[in-house]
Every structure is written in structure tokens, then in C-alpha cells.
């Protein structure tokens, strides 16, 4: 088959099994767009901003596990994509971003719409490529998908100079089925000796704790994790990125840990004697003050990325490998083990944990005349049977979503944890809906975050993507306001967000349905009504209690056990 570079790009995507590309055209990618026009296999979703394209591709990837694909033009198209690329990078999401570049002969001449995309994106990609010859195009694209989706996943940029896609230059094309790279071979199988040592420690533990993160979801290892956890009968906590990897309604689950995690999860971390970290990266939002982190614990860490191990916290038994594989091996080994779990010690440990649980740290005022954001999320969980895809933006609403929606399946909870990108929620939700047109998809957001990518209401209309936007409108950058309340004597510097569009009319202007809800008794009805409209995007503007804060809270730099339940720093 003789194809031009532009046709190779599109044919390759088809051969690679890519069904959807999120993008925005421009000069440098016009040849590619022309090739897209002349076929029907690869569907192009036109966003309203390149940031929206990368977030939508990201949401698509997180929901499906397949790499998301974005296509942007050179210069401003490429720079607009950077926030989305960095967002995917920090959460290890497989993304392939194709950016146009000026023709090779112009590179370096400050040509029209030229930026050094390889240079600009370098610190926030897993890898990137500049295509220097049309004959390298197919193999480079193959490498990009391979690198993005294997090992610790991440975004890969392929920068494509316009002249390498010249429709006048045709070359033979064959889909490169296999690729091997001598410089890139992620370790999959864990070291058997380390696994034995780890199990010995795990089985001998008296106050064990399983701390699991986004890696479990990336590894598709929820089943193995659930079996492992239930075989042991040990308590388990998830990071913000790991929610759903273990059923959120199960009794062994003690909730999320970290800055806004539950009392029981953080206390159990603090008091445990053996900590098993699985696909979690000891982020500072989780550890708090490193010096006070799990002071009594011997630590086992399973991770595919050796650089995650002993980066922030020194561990005793590292196991480098893919979680699915390692847990499968561990389960096998566990069954044949002679050493038995000290069930009495574990029963005592559970007794202690249940005492911590009794503090009911996620309590809130259920009799308030104002709508409490927690209540909205609780009702959302009920109305959707805990089975919707839920994306979120960044702020208090994100934490309420994490605390109050009980995720029972992996890939249902989609949020920007590492970069904390406001504006992520809605385009991500649209990406999810593109992948699963019939599934219920909700985007929990705030009046400030939503305005960062609100233009994607246009994309939603064009492709009839009936997501439900749950706007927890507190008229503040609530998370910022909370910090100012606690640490800046209530000086709410630039965090008041009272000047907003009429969100109902805004939704309507875009051809969607808008609803404003300002009484607690209307919350459930509105949610039911919205989800009953299966083919409509409904924007629900919930007017919530402006002063609500997220608790528990560990102030930055404090120990895990120093949790607070009020701005007066009442300790739990």
C-alpha cells in the first residue's frame, strides 16, 4: 500500500485500533485533517480548545484503559495542549498526542506558529519524538503507543513536521505489528525471593495495613487485590487515585487516606506494624510530615517504576513488577504457606480500628436548611446506584466526591490528583461518554473550576454527549477559601467567586437543559429527573452552603495522626 504521511497517520490509527481522536485543526495538520475527512473508520471529535482535547482523551483513557489520542496543530495548538499533557503525566495516564510542526526546513527559524514542542513538553511526557522522515512515521507512531501504554503509563508526544505529511509524497506502508526497543523494557515479574520475604512479613504482622493506589487500576489488578485483601482479612485504604480498585462499600475498606482521608485510615497507617504499599507513590498529600510517617512500620512496596520506590520514604522490601502479576504470584505462594496469620492479633487490631471508625469523621449537619455538598454527593451515589462514571474538577467538591461517592469498581472515579487541574472535569466526562455512550456519566464540579473549560459544552452538543454536570456552587474557590479561613485569618483574598454567569441560561444557550436547585428537599428529585433524561446533558446548579469545609484535614507538613475537625483546630 502506497500512502502519504498524512494517510499513514490515519491508517496507522485505524490499524492500532484507535476509534476516536480528540482534536482541533490548524495549518500544520491540515494534510492530516484532509486524510481524516476522506475516511470513516477513525472518528474525530472536535473540541473547543486543545486543553479540552487532551482532557477528553485523558478521560477516555482512564475509563477504558486504552491510550487516549489527541491531535493538535503547531504553536498555540501545541502549547494549549500542555496542561492536559502534564495532567496525564502526573497521574500516569496513557495518552498519545500528535502535534503538527512547521516543515523541517523551517524548524529553528521562528517560523509562523513554530514552538519547540519536543522541548516544551519534555519535562511532562514519558517520552517524545520528532518525526524526521516520513519513512519513520509508522514505526515512530508504534513506539509512541507502546511506550505510552506499557510499564508505568504516561503521555507521549509525536511532533510531526508538515512536510512529512505531504500528500504528494507516497511511500509503501505496512502496519508495524511488533516493536522492540533495546532501551525500554519494563519489568513485569516480581523477584520471587522478594515476594517470599514480603509474604513472611505480611503473614506475621499484628497490625497490618494495605495502602493501595492508582497503580492497581492501571494494572487492571482489582480482582487480584480484592482476593488478596479478603484472603488476608486485613484493613485496606486507597489513595485518591486508587478509589474503586477495592470495593468502597466493603467492610475491610477503611476509606481514603491522606490530607482529607478518614480518621480510621490515617490512624491505622500511623499505628500499623507492617505496611503494604501497592501501586501508590507516597505523595506528600498522603504522607504528611515524612518524619512522622508510619513510625512503627516495616514497609513493603510493589511498583512497576523503580524510581517510585524509596523516593520519598525508604522501604524495607521493594518489589519491582506489574501488580497483576505480582499479586497473582503472591496469592499462589500464600496458599502454600505454612506460617499462619495470628488471628487473635488481627481481631484486636480490628477492634482498635472500629473504635477509630466510631468517631464518624465524615459527619456533617444533616438538618441544615442549606444544601450541604456532601448531601448532594451522597444522593448522587444513591440515585446512580454507586455505578456511574464520576469525573471531578479540583477543589472541595473533589474531596466531597472522593469521600461520599462509594466507588465499587475501578475506572469509575476519574480526577486530576497529581497536577490538580481545574477545568479537567467536564472534558474528561465527555471523553468518558464518547467511550461509553450509554453509561451514566457525572461531572462533579464547582462554579470556579467549571468556567475553566466551559466552552466544551459546545462539544457536548455537537456529539450529543448526555453527561450530567453536578455544579456544587458555593460562590467561592472553596478550597482556597478554606485555607484562607484556617491560615490567613479569613482574609478571602481573590477567592470569592460571586460574579458568575447564570448557569441555567448558559446551559440553555448551548442547547442543553439547566436546573437550579437551592433547597435540600429538592436535591434527590432533581438528580432523578436529570438522570432520567438519558439523551440530554443536564447542568444542575446546586446552590450549596458557602461556608462548608472539608474534614478531616491534616494541615500541610503535619503528621498523619494530627487530624482536625474544625477551623479552631479541634483535634479528633
Amino acid at each position, binding site marked *: 500500500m502506497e500512502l502519504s504521511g498524512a494517510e499513514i497517520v490515519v491508517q496507522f490509527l485505524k490499524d492500532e485500533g484507535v476509534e476516536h481522536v480528540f482534536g482541533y485543526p490548524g495549518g500544520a495538520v491540515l494534510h492530516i485533517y484532509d486524510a481524516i475527512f476522506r475516511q470513516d473508520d477513525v472518528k474525530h471529535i472536535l473540541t473547543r480548545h486543545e486543553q479540552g482535547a487532551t482532557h477528553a482523551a485523558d478521560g477516555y483513557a482512564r475509563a477504558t484503559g486504552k491510550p487516549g489520542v489527541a491531535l493538535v496543530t503547531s504553536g498555540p495548538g501545541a502549547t494549549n495542549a500542555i496542561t492536559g499533557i502534564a495532567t496525564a503525566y502526573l497521574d500516569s495516564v496513557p495518552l498519545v498526542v500528535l502535534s503538527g510542526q512547521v516543515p523541517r526546513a523551517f524548524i529553528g527559524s521562528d517560523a509562523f506558529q513554530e514552538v519547540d514542542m519536543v522541548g516544551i513538553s519534555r*519535562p511532562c511526557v514519558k517520552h517524545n519524538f520528532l518525526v*524526521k522522515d516520513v519513512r519513520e512515521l509508522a514505526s515512530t507512531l508504534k513506539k509512541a503507543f507502546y511506550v505510552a501504554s506499557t510499564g508505568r503509563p504516561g503521555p507521549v508526544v509525536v511532533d510531526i513536521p508538515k512536510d512529512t505529511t505531504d500528500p504528494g509524497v507516497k511511500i509503501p506502508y505496512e502496519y508495524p505489528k511488533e516493536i522492540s526497543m533495546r532501551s525500554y523494557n519494563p519489568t513485569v515479574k516480581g523477584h520471587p525471593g522478594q515476594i517470599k520475604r514480603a509474604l513472611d512479613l505480611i503473614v506475621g504482622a499484628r497490625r497490618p495495613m494495605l495502602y493501595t493506589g492508582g497503580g492497581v487500576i492501571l494494572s487492571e489488578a482489582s480482582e487480584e487485590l480484592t482476593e488478596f485483601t479478603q484472603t488476608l482479612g486485613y484493613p485496606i485504604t486507597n489513595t485518591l487515585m486508587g478509589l474503586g480498585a477495592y470495593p468502597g462499600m466493603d467492610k475491610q475498606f477503611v476509606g481514603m487516606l491522606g490530607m482529607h482521608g478518614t480518621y480510621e485510615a490515617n490512624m491505622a497507617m500511623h499505628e500499623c506494624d507492617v505496611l503494604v504499599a501497592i501501586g501508590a507513590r507516597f505523595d506528600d498529600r498522603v504522607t504528611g510530615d515524612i518524619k512522622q510517617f508510619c513510625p512503627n512500620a516495616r514497609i513493603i512496596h510493589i511498583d512497576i517504576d523503580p*524510581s517510585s520506590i524509596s523516593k520519598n520514604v525508604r522501604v524495607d522490601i521493594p518489589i519491582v513488577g506489574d501488580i497483576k502479576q505480582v499479586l497473582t504470584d503472591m496469592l499462589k505462594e500464600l496458599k502454600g504457606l505454612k506460617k499462619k496469620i495470628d488471628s487473635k492479633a488481627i481481631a484486636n487490631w480490628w477492634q482498635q480500628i472500629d473504635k477509630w471508625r466510631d468517631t464518624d469523621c465524615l459527619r456533617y449537619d444533616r438538618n441544615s436548611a442549606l444544601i450541604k455538598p456532601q448531601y448532594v454527593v451522597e444522593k448522587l451515589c444513591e440515585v446512580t446506584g454507586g455505578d456511574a462514571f464520576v469525573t471531578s474538577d479540583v477543589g472541595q467538591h473533589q474531596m466531597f466526591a472522593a469521600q461520599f461517592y462509594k466507588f465499587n469498581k475501578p475506572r469509575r472515579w476519574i480526577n486530576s490528583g497529581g497536577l490538580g487541574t481545574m477545568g479537567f472535569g467536564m472534558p474528561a466526562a465527555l471523553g468518558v461518554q464518547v467511550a461509553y455512550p450509554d453509561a451514566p456519566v457525572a461531572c462533579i464540579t464547582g462554579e470556579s473550576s467549571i468556567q475553566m473549560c466551559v466552552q466544551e459544552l459546545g462539544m457536548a452538543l455537537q456529539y450529543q454527549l448526555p453527561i450530567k454536570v453536578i455544579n456544587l456552587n458555593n460562590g467561592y474557590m472553596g478550597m482556597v477559601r478554606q485555607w484562607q479561613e484556617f491560615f490567613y485569618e479569613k482574609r478571602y483574598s481573590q477567592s470569592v467567586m460571586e460574579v458568575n454567569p447564570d448557569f441555567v441560561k448558559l446551559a440553555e444557550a448551548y442547547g442543553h437543559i439547566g436546573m437550579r436547585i437551592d433547597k435540600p428537599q429538592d436535591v434527590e428529585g432533581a438528580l432523578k429527573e436529570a438522570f432520567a433524561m438519558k439523551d440530554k446533558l443536564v447542568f444542575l446548579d446546586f446552590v450549596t452552603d458557602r461556608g462548608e469545609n472539608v474534614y478531616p484535614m491534616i494541615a500541610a507538613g503535619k503528621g498523619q495522626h494530627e487530624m482536625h475537625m474544625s477551623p479552631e483546630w479541634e483535634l479528633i
Partner: protein
Amino acid sequence: MRHIISLLMENEAGALSRVAGLFSARGYNIESLTVAPTEDPTMSRMTLVTTGSEDIVEQITKQLNKLVDIVKLADITEGEHIERELMLIKVMASNAEQREEVKRMTDIFRGRVIDVKDANFTIEITGDGNKLDAFIDALQHSDIIETVRSGTTGISRGAKCLHI
């Protein structure tokens, strides 16, 4: 602690900037860096000298290993090794006394005078960094016009080697 890290990397445009970018982005120290193609033209060999605690150097080697262009890596300071650096140094040598002094020092340090002009000599000298420092110290009474150092390169002793 000072560490010498040797790496084999794909001879690709951009590979060098990935390494340099990693060091600046993560705030690691970099004392010197040298790079050149190997006998296999598809690969370059880089030698990096860095300092940091054991934890930091462990992270540095892990982060380097993670770069997709890096094929293989070794911290050669972990075992017996040889390190060498080349220096070219231009000094004033306009009268007989100066010339004699510079020549004498060069001989003591087993250097070579490789360019002789009316007013100056250029000397080539190799050794580890300390030796080159010592040579500069020894020449302090002469006027040094210019020095250029290659940065450290190194190789493990014996059977240990870095190849694919």
C-alpha cells in the same frame, strides 16, 4: 559522596537534553558531563559526575534508567575503576626562565607541550581531577592564559563492563 555514572544511550537528537533536563528539573548536582559516540555508531556513551547522599544518587540512577533513550547505566564508583580527564592549558612562556619552569612542571606531571609560540606554551595533560587541580596549583607562579578540561570519563577495572 561523588559518583561517576556511565551510560549508554541511543544516539538520538534530544537524548542529551533529556539527561541535562532531568538534572535541572529535579535539582540534582552535576559536576561534569561528557558524551561521544561509541564503536557502535547507534549509541553514545556519557559519563556524568555527580554528588549527593546515597538516597539522592539512588534516585538519580533510577531516574536516568527511566529515560527511554538510555540503554544501560552503571555507577562505576561502586567498584574498582579508572578515571581520567584531559586538560589543555595555555600559559605565558615568553622568556627562558618561564619556559624552563613550565617545561619542568609539565615533565613532573607527565604532561606534554603540544604547541609552542613566541609568548606561550600549550600543554596537554591527563589524569584524574585531583592531578589536574594539582598541576594548576603548581603553575600558579606562571601566568595561565586559558584552561579547558574535558570533564571526567571513566571505566571499570577488570572484567566488569558496560556494553549490550
